[in-house]
């Protein structure tokens, strides 16, 4: 399975949308940098995340904290640290980065 990373805000860029169009069931999507805005609850994009129960969503803690999003990030998105990022990378056969 592929680990997809997204580093752009979905409000400004198509990376999130195009990534999800190409995601296969059971793959993982990790939101990093401005990509974490996709997990802001009660938005078009967090609704999409909630609907895609076939995908495992993660977001990088340092980027969430830096942007003040800890309290408003969708609870179904798993928050991980850098070590978690490494673990995800080694547990997937390849990485596809969307930017």
């Amino acid at each position, binding site marked *: *399975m*592929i680990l997809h990373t997204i580093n752009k805000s979905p409000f400004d860029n*198509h990376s999130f949308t*195009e990534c999800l*169009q*190409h*995601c*296969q069931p059971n793959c993982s999507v990790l939101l990093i940098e401005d990509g974490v805005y996709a997990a802001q609850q009660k938005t078009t994009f967090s609704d999409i995340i909630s609907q895609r129960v076939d995908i495992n969503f993660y977001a990088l803690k340092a980027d969430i904290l830096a942007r003040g999003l800890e309290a408003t990030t969708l609870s179904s998105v798993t928050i991980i640290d850098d070590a978690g990022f490494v673990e995800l990378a080694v547990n997937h*056969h*390849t*990485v*596809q*980065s*969307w*930017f």
Partner: protein
Amino acid sequence: MNTSSTKRMVLFCRKSPYGNALAREALEIALATAVFEQDLAIIFSGDGVWQLQPQQNSAEIHVKSQQKLLAAFAMYDLNEIYVEQEALELRNINHQELSIAATLIDRQKAAELCNSADIILNF
């Protein structure tokens, strides 16, 4: 996954040409990869399909034409070239009129090709 020294690579091109250097750099990677005889598939998706538009003339913006770079693909034995149907339809681009021959695939097939790769380079 391929365990031999030849890796299965997918170059996933989703940026339009000329606006920035990403599209051109992806094509240059394709040519370099071909020189080293790696197993490469190139997929044009999203705004990347604009790269296949015929009759590009970049003289007046003073940069090299990317269409010429694409035309070199056949010479480098880069023959596994795909274009995504949904991306063409969204932009009203006719598959028959593309500047190079590219196999028409749907989004699902594009995802499967990525999934079977050892290395994915997304541009």
